[in-house]
Structure formats: structure tokens, C-alpha cells
């Protein structure tokens, strides 16, 4: 599904990704672990096309299609979704309005019909209930004044509403207490399917107790330094990242 080959990327002229190669097949969940400053968030922004993150070498394809040639919104329409480490507050735009605008923009880009208002609201109520989100909260400005946990839950809500094919979770567990972590993880696990793949970026092993990965990769100094099964996460938790330090 997602193929990253020899990816080099710079931020403000500094090379952060230095030849990263990674393959995530459909139906699998891969975890990216690594020390602070290894390039984890840079990878998520390069994959989603954020301005200021310049690819200098290498390729990224989603189902054989060149992802790097597409605008951020076109990548979203192809099914790429990033759950932000720090979700953005948008005062003046109600959550439901924002998500409906996004959903219809994606449908339009794919040549599909708009979602009718009743169908959208019905689905929104179902998803909100499953994530224990008060529906009234969705009528308020998106994320404005929300707690860290509420913002993360809103990310998963958007993910469930937009039904992406390739999910990137950037430090989704940060700022969550155990109850919220369980709800969020259940929301993510409900999205697992043979047609979807996920990249779970995390500093700590804790999240992987709830979202079980098929593969674990260590990102250090801008490239994949080691790969293994779920046991690698436990090993990292016990031994730390010292042996991968540059």
C-alpha cells in the first residue's frame, strides 16, 4: 500500500530524513518508535505535504501512485489521514461544519456525490456515541478550549467520519489518561481492516499495548535503524534508544 524509498527531507535547510525506506502493506499496522528529534513528526508532515518540509531525494507511493506530486488536500482525498500530535483550534468554525466541509471536498475530488445533511448527521451521532463524545460539543468551534484528551478524541472522530485508507497517528497517546487512551484505541482498532493500513508514531510503548502493531520500526537519525515484531517495542521500553543514538 504505502512504499517509501530512500526518502531524504530537509526542514529549514537541515536534513532530517536521511534515506528512509519503509513498506506498509494493506491490512497492517506498523509502529514507528524513536528518540526525540529522530524525525518522527517530520515523516508525518512529509507524507502529508506540509509546507516547509522539502523532499530532496527518494519516492513515496500510495498504491503505486506518486504521493509527493499531490497537494495536501489531494493526498487527503486519496485517503491519507494524519492525526495531529497537537490538534489545531479553529475558533468560529463549528466542528460539524468543518468535518462536513472536509468530507464533501473529498467526495468532490473523487467525483462522488455530496453527503446529504441528514445522512451526515445520523452518522455523526453514531460515531460520537461510540467515542463517548457529547454531540453538543461538535456544534462548538472546533477544538476551541478543548482539553488535550478531548482534542485527541476529536481527531479520532474525524478519522472515523472521513474513513481514510492510510492512517498516520502522531503521538496520539500524549496527553491522554488511561480511560481516554482506551476509548481512543478502541476507536482506532475499529478502523482496522484488510483495505487499510496504519502508521503509529510513538515515543512510548504504552500505546502499543492498546493498538497492537504487526511490525515495529526504530527511527533514529533520519532512517530506519531496526525493524522487528511487536517484541521489539518491549525491548525498546526496557533498554531505551541508546544503542541507536547517532
Amino acid at each position, binding site marked *: 500500500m504505502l512504499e517509501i524509498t530512500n526518502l531524504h527531507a530537509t526542514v529549514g535547510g537541515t536534513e532530517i530524513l536521511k534515506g528512509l525506506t519503509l513498506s506498509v502493506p494493506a491490512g497492517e499496522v506498523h509502529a514507528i518508535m524513536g528518540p526525540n528529534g529522530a524525525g518522527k513528526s517530520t515523516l508525518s508532515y512529509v507524507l502529508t505535504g*506540509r*509546507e516547509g518540509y522539502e523532499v530532496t531525494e527518494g519516492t513515496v507511493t500510495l498504491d503505486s501512485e506518486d504521493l509527493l506530486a499531490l497537494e495536501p*488536500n489531494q493526498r*487527503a482525498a486519496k485517503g491519507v489521514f*494524519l492525526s495531529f500530535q497537537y490538534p489545531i483550534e479553529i475558533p*468560529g*468554525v463549528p466542528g460539524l461544519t468543518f468535518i462536513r466541509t472536509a468530507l464533501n*471536498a473529498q467526495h468532490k475530488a473523487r467525483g462522488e456525490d455530496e453527503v446529504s445533511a441528514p445522512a451526515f448527521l445520523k452518522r455523526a451521532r453514531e460515531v460520537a456515541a461510540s467515542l463517548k463524545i457529547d454531540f453538543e460539543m461538535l456544534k462548538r468551534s472546533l477544538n476551541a478550549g478543548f482539553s488535550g484528551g478531548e482534542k485527541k478524541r476529536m481527531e479520532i472522530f*474525524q478519522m472515523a467520519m472521513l474513513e481514510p485508507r492510510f492512517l498516520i497517528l502522531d503521538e496520539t497517546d500524549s496527553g491522554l489518561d488511561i480511560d481516554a487512551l482506551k476509548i481512543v484505541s478502541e476507536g482506532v482498532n475499529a478502523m482496522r481492516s484488510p483495505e487499510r493500513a496504519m502508521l503509529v508514531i510513538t515515543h512510548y510503548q504504552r500505546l502499543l499495548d492498546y493498538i497492537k502493531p504487526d511490525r515495529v520500526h526504530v527511527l533514529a537519525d533520519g532512517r530506519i535503524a531496526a525493524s522487528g515484531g511487536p517484541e521489539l517495542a518491549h525491548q525498546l521500553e526496557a533498554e531505551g534508544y541508546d544503542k541507536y543514538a547517532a
Partner: protein
Amino acid sequence: MISLSRALETGDLSLLPSRRDEDWRWSDLRGLIRSVPPQSQDASAHGDGPFTAVCDESMLIINGGSARIHLAEGESKTIALRLVSRAVGTQHHAQVLIDLADGAQLTLLESHEGDGSGYISTTDLDIRLGAGSGLERIVLTAEAADVIAVSQAAVRLAPNARYRQTTLAAGAKRERNETQVVHPGQGASVRLDGAYLLGQGHTDLTSVVTHTGEGGTTSQLTKGAVAGQGRGVFQGRIVVERGADQTDAKMGHHALILDDRAEVDAKPELLIFADDVACAHGNTVGQLDETAIFYARQRGIPLSEARAMLTEAFVGEVIDRIEHEGARDVARAWAMEKLRGLA
């Protein structure tokens, strides 16, 4: 108040405000008007104004003239006042007296509509609010692009009167909407808002609120978005005179600059000569939050739509404060249409 109409009437161009006049330095007219143009001829207007569908009655002034709106004690009305310019290279002046008896309630939906080019339009409004009366005045400007339009309102409130104003400005070659309020305190309250959305041209929102008595409130919020080579000017002054204690006054002006060549000049001022007052002002001029734009695009929203959505949300705070529902809908549609043009 420097009166443009007086200069045009007498033909004495030295009376025109210039860069040297502090209150006009960003909207200089002397450099722009080299000779007094001839008077505009009578004309007729056709079609509806922007507020026609949401008012009880409509008044029309074409190419200048005078009008009086009087509401008797306890009377309540929504009146659309259309100030239409249909002129090419000429000038005209409108004089409007608005006079509310005690307890009267007026919603005034004022539109400045331009059809033509190169004209100079001046408007003076004399607005008097009786005790306990209320006026919500919504001003929408839609002048032709290459014209000079100056509107000056002098507002006087009696105790316990409520004056609320929202100016929605789209700019011209030089456009200025000036409001001078004499605020007696004593339970009277003022809301003085504005929104300007420019892709080109110039607009100037200038106001002076003078608190002369105890216990008055003023709340002011102006927001602007300027693209292209547009230039927005905000000058807000709140004066709290000696003895006007327990005055509560807030002023906010916040603008977005959407292009490198766009310009915003702002001068918020609080002049306080009384003790025991609560006054605050805030002023910001910045750009759209790039992180928020990326966030919206990551969810699938195209760049131009994301910019329009965020700008609309920014300006929406002003529009939400409009109390008349029909006028609020007109204002929201106006903002959406303007923003589509800017994005």
C-alpha cells in the same frame, strides 16, 4: 469634524483634509481632489437594495438630497435607507436627520450603492436618540471602485438609550465612514462594530466616542481582511471626560493581511480623564495561521476554500453581534461573497 461637503460647497479646496490633519493622515483628500466637480444630475434607481427583503419600509436618496426619519414615542420600525450614486465624474451630498423620541426603536439598514464612476459622494447624518430609545444601524457600502465616498455621522444619546452600529465596508478609491458619538453615560450603551473586506481600494473606519457622564458602556469590535493592494484604516478613539466615572469601554481591532502588498493602518486610542473606569483596547494585524490552513487541507479542504473558511470565521465574530436577524443574514452572505473574491 472636518467636513468634506463644506469644502465642495464653497469650492475652497484648502478646506479639504490633508496628510497634515492628524485624523485624516491615512485618508488624505487634498492630494486626490484637484478641482470641484460639477453637481450630479437627478437620476432614477431601479432594482432592490441589499436590505429590501428584510425591512418594513424603504427610503431612497439618489445623487444626494435630504431625508428625515422620525419615530414617535414608543414607535418601532425597520427602515432601509438606500443612498444611491448614479453619476460619472460629478459630486453630490446627502443630508439625513434621524430623530428618535423617547422609547422608540429603530433598525436602520443603510446601504451606499454606487453605479457609475469617478464621482464624489458625501453624506452627513445627524442622529439623535431620546431617553430609553434604541437604534441598531447597519451600514453596508457597495460603491463603485474608482470613487470618493465619505460618510460622517454625529450621534447624540440621551440617558438609557442604546446605540448599536455595524459598518460593513468594501472600499473605493477613498472611502471613509466616520462616527462621532456623544455618550452621556447614565445607563446609555454603545456598540460600535465594523468589518472591512478589501481586494483593492481603500476604506477608513474612524470613530470617536466621548463619554461625558457616569456609568456608560461602549463595546467596539472591528475586524478586517485585506488582500491584493487594498488598504484598510482603523482609527478608534474613546474619550472618557473628567467625571465620567464607572465608564466601561472596550475596543478591539484585528486585521488579516492576505497579500504582501496589502496594508492596514490602525490607531486605537483611549483618552481617560476620569477615575474608576474599566477601559481596555486590543489591536492585532497578522496573517492567517499557516498551521490551521495546513490542518484544513490535510482533511481534504482545498487551499482557497480553507483560506476563505478561516477568514470568514475570523470576521464572523463581528457579524454574530448584529442583532437584527435579517440584517445578520445579509451581512453573512455579503462576507461570503466578498471572501470568495479575495481567496
